[in-house]
């Protein structure tokens, strides 16, 4: 089973991101779970969203997990939230930031012995430039596709179009660009 924990603020789209990811993973024949733990459910409040992916039906309903991936889509939460909570020796981190990786890690003591498992990408800037709003969930999906190697980019983009089908073409195009850019820019 692969387990993913998203750190986000309400309104940044982590819940939608987690559900979209679940939707697309399911098309590959895998079983998925996507859920969130809301705080006070107000815009801007810190929240966590979760994915589970497995080859067989997922029957655990605990909120607790030891994540394989931690996706941080709000730059400040990397500093203020406990992003390494319940992690493993193999947990990979993808963090949205405008900082260089070394600069970021130097500011987060908990990451200092994990540098080889930390990836950075500026999802905020990418979403502003492609979608026109600060919606960092779509670029994070692109970065995740790259880091996890779970999908070919084209496969993911095609399926994401289906997930976004109810939106205007402009929004869909923006999301495709955001995912592609983050896929190429994550490091």
């Amino acid at each position, binding site marked *: 089973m692969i387990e993913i924990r998203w750190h986000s603020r309400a309104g940044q789209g982590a819940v939608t991101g987690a559900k979209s990811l679940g939707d697309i993973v*399911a098309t590959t024949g895998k079983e*998925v779970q*996507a859920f*969130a733990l809301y705080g006070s459910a107000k815009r801007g409040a810190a929240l966590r969203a979760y994915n589970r992916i497995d080859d067989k039906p997922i029957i655990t*309903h*605990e909120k607790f997990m030891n994540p394989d991936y931690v996706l941080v889509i709000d730059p400040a939460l990397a500093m203020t939230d406990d992003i390494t909570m319940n992690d493993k020796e193999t947990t990979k981190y993808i963090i949205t930031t405008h900082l260089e990786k070394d600069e970021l890690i130097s500011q987060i003591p908990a990451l200092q012995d994990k540098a080889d498992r930390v990836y950075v990408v500026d999802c905020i800037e990418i979403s502003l430039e492609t979608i026109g709003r600060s919606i960092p969930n779509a670029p994070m999906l692109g970065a995740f596709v790259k880091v996890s190697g779970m999908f070919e980019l084209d496969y993911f983009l095609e399926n994401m179009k289906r997930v976004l089908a109810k939106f205007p073409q402009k929004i869909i195009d923006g999301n495709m660009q955001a995912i592609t850019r983050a896929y190429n820019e994550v490091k």
Partner: protein
Amino acid sequence: MAEKFDLNEREVWDGNYAASQALRQAQVDVVAAYPITPSTPIVENYGAYVANGYIDGEFVMVESEHAAMSGCVGASAAGGRVATATSSQGFALMVEVLYQASGMRLPIVLTVVNRALASPLNVRGDHGDMYLGRDSGWIQIDAFNAQEAYDLTLCAFKIGENHDVRLPVMVHQDGFITSHTAQNVYPLSDEKAYGFIGDIVPVDDMLDFSRPVTYGAQTEEDWHFEHKAKQHKALMDSRTVIDDVFAEFEKLTGRKYNRVEGYDMDDAEVVIVALGTTVETARVAAQELREEGVKAGVVGIRVFRPFPFDQVRDMLENAKSIAVLDRSSPGGAMGAFFNEVSAALYTTPNRPLITNYIYGLGGRDFSVAEAKRIFLEQKANADAGHITTDIQQFSGLRGPHLGYFQTKRS
């Protein structure tokens, strides 16, 4: 004629979406609803289906849950297929009318997304509202995940509207843990789903003007008791209809439901008995412990009312130590579910050891680790031959241990 709704063979839906799709496919005539967290999306989704032309029936906006259920009573007495959704405080406000609906033998379907009852105010899942309905005369079916919330909502119409039953049916799912968790769901096509349920054939419908009938009559000591006895008999007799509907559903889908679900129970010595998502989480713990040589099993109650006294007994009589998990504040007693399971087991020759855990109130996480700890406490009981813990314990509570009563059987 309703628009066609495109469905894939495999969808990723949360429990709310699954329930709302089942209501759409049932072609409900009237939904009267007042939304409340966490069942709000069932009502929202249904409203969107109506607005977008996917539903021919009526959606009635009302001013409260009391009015929602009252609207359902009227529409059902008129002869329609009727459903609504609620949770927690909304459920509490419906309670008066729940008894009216069952007493009038109206086959309304109520999808309940379980949530704690205030105070303190809490929107998350526990079974306080479900327990509040347990003497209301409704059939209560419990889903452990989103797929089941979909499947069992379809089954609910077919059970309640059966002329040998004629009772309202609740389909429960856990607030947030099921209602807001997306997972793989394999829906039926609209034709298959509706074909399974079939058309409603009303009994004594008030819109049949050629044959006037009275609903909600007054009966004092002369006949009230006989009415309630008939209602109880209808609930008890519904067991065979429920079994038949589940069997027919299995033929259609391959998905098999039972009034009591047993997992790893053939040789189980230590058992967790639970409701809702906890049943599945406990199964993970049981499977892990079996690898360590502990003969652990899980029993889930699929049909809470009519309570499967006989099947609970059959399933559990050879176990050694049993933990019954109540996700509802017991309010100065043993957990109600514990009492019911205990009563069933008291009539067996073996009378296994049985203890009560109060857990998960207000959405407190129930982890695999916690389930394992509970199993291991049962193992200690089984090895000792008597209960080694308090008979009732709060599990997963912050602060000092809280527990009551010790065994007299040691």
